[in-house]
């Protein structure tokens, strides 16, 4: 339960998170000198470390940079826009300690948020965000060293972290006191069961992975596998739901309706704005199918699948009455990505192995409801029925497309410039160049005829 070098004690990091899938999982950090205690959301879908730097009506606390003797203002204004919400802040550096993490004090980049919109939601118990994705996503540029890179460099820990979120079967926006673990620098064996299955990171920005196939109730959706990765498929702890590209979402909802033999359901339930409530004596989970996601294995001719049971995607809501228990649908549609969010991650211990450019999944020890597992993982499967690549080319070749478009624009600009010059040249001048002043009978005749 520790780093082979003996420098890190992973057991100390077990249960260092609090929160739920609805409002996110957060870690306690101490910032500045003297230390200011703040809760920080763990987000594998972004790369900036940012904290509230001014009082906010929805927050109980903020980072007061003026009170910290070690805070250094760098002054760069940073703006970050998320799928939902945005903020503006100013870049600086300060020291941080992680009470349930790596021993020591580290100097890291911090953005002090001065303005935000739809970012700090009502009722959240965190005051900032810890972006654990690659530096390619860091704002204003990738030259801003990320929190985890600073930790790896200064604490000399392996370039790997792992995440267990323990909200399966519990209300999505409840008391926010569910547990979880962020293991910095390695893998803690007590947090998973069975084998770890790894899928390659397709591109180091988000944790982008390749999805080959989706099954609902054991039946293949049979969509073109590129649809599942349109325009990317990522693993993101900062997203609550399992988000699916629109076409995939429609197919999944259709298959769930078919498989669950649902008699009558409002569209508001599938779109997420309505809860479905059953008598407490009913067991609605037993009627819904399992959903399996097939991921490319490290051996590219193979795959493995992660399966979520209905306990993970038909989620109990906090709003219950005496006789009823209400649930919400934990899957939504997306216009630009497939996001393996907290809904799915709660079923697994997820390893972000940056050294070997791969993401690992294993059965989480806390993915149980009433003593029964709510997730599954198995393989290997052959990939003969799937294309050699399912990753959208648009996302893969984006830099190349930019180069091509710039080259075309330059060529068009050059042609336009030549045309303009030709138009602007005085007619006489053109005539001069064309006939060099030589006048013969024929040309003179033509000219005079025109006159």
């Amino acid at each position, binding site marked *: 339960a520790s780093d082979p070098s003996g420098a890190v004690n992973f057991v100390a990091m077990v249960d260092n998170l609090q929160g739920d899938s609805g409002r*996110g999982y957060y870690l306690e950090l101490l910032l500045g000198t003297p230390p200011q205690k703040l809760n920080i959301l763990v987000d594998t879908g972004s790369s900036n470390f940012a904290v509230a730097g001014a009082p906010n009506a929805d927050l109980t606390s903020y980072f007061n940079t003026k009170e910290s003797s070690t805070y250094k203002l760098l002054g760069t204004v940073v703006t970050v826009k998320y799928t939902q919400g945005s903020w503006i802040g100013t870049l600086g550096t300060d020291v941080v300690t992680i009470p349930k993490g790596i021993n020591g004090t580290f100097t890291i980049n911090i953005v002090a948020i001065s303005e935000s919109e739809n970012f700090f939601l009502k009722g959240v118990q965190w005051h900032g965000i810890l972006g654990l994705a690659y530096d390619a996503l860091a704002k204003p540029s990738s030259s801003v060293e990320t929190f985890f890179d600073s930790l790896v460099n200064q604490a000399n820990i392996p370039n790997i972290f792992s995440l267990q979120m323990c909200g399966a079967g519990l209300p999505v926006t409840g008391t926010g006191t569910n547990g979880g673990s962020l293991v910095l620098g390695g893998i803690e064996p007590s947090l998973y069961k069975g084998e770890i299955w790894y899928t390659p990171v397709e591109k180091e920005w988000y944790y982008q992975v390749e999805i080959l196939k989706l099954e609902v109730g054991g039946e293949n959706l049979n969509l073109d596998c590129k649809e599942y990765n349109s325009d990317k498929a990522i693993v993101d702890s900062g997203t609550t739901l399992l988000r699916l590209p629109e076409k995939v979402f429609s197919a999944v909802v259709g298959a769930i309706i078919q498989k669950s033999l*649902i008699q009558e359901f409002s569209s*508001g339930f599938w779109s997420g704005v309505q*809860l479905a*409530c059953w008598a407490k004596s009913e067991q609605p989970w037993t*009627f819904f199918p399992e959903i399996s996601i097939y991921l490319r294995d490290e051996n590219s001719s193979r795959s493995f699948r992660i399966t979520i049971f209905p306990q993970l995607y038909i989620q109990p809501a906090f*709003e219950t009455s005496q006789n009823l228990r209400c649930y919400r649908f934990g899957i939504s549609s997306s216009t630009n990505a497939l996001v393996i969010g907290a809904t799915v991650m709660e079923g697994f211990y997820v390893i972000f192995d940056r050294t070997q450019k791969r993401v690992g999944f294993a059965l989480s020890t806390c993915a149980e409801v009433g003593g029964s597992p709510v997730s599954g993982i198995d393989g290997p499967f052959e990939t003969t029925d799937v294309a050699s690549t399912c990753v959208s080319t648009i996302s893969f070749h984006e830099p190349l497309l930019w180069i091509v478009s710039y080259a075309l624009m330059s060529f068009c600009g050059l042609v336009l410039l030549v045309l303009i010059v030709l138009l602007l040249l005085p007619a006489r001048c053109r005539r001069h160049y064309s006939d060099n002043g030589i006048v013969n009978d024929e040309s003179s005749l033509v000219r005079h005829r025109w006159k």
Partner: protein
Amino acid sequence: VSPPSAPDGSLVPVPVALKPRGGGNGTGTGSSPELQQEAEGLAL
């Protein structure tokens, strides 16, 4: 939705109630952006 016939005839019991999330109008259509956002949870 017309349910297909199942060998054992089991169907998901119709929910006793469909409640709006967060106190909206509950129609499931034309919901406010706030209600939709609450429904989506975090998307960072």
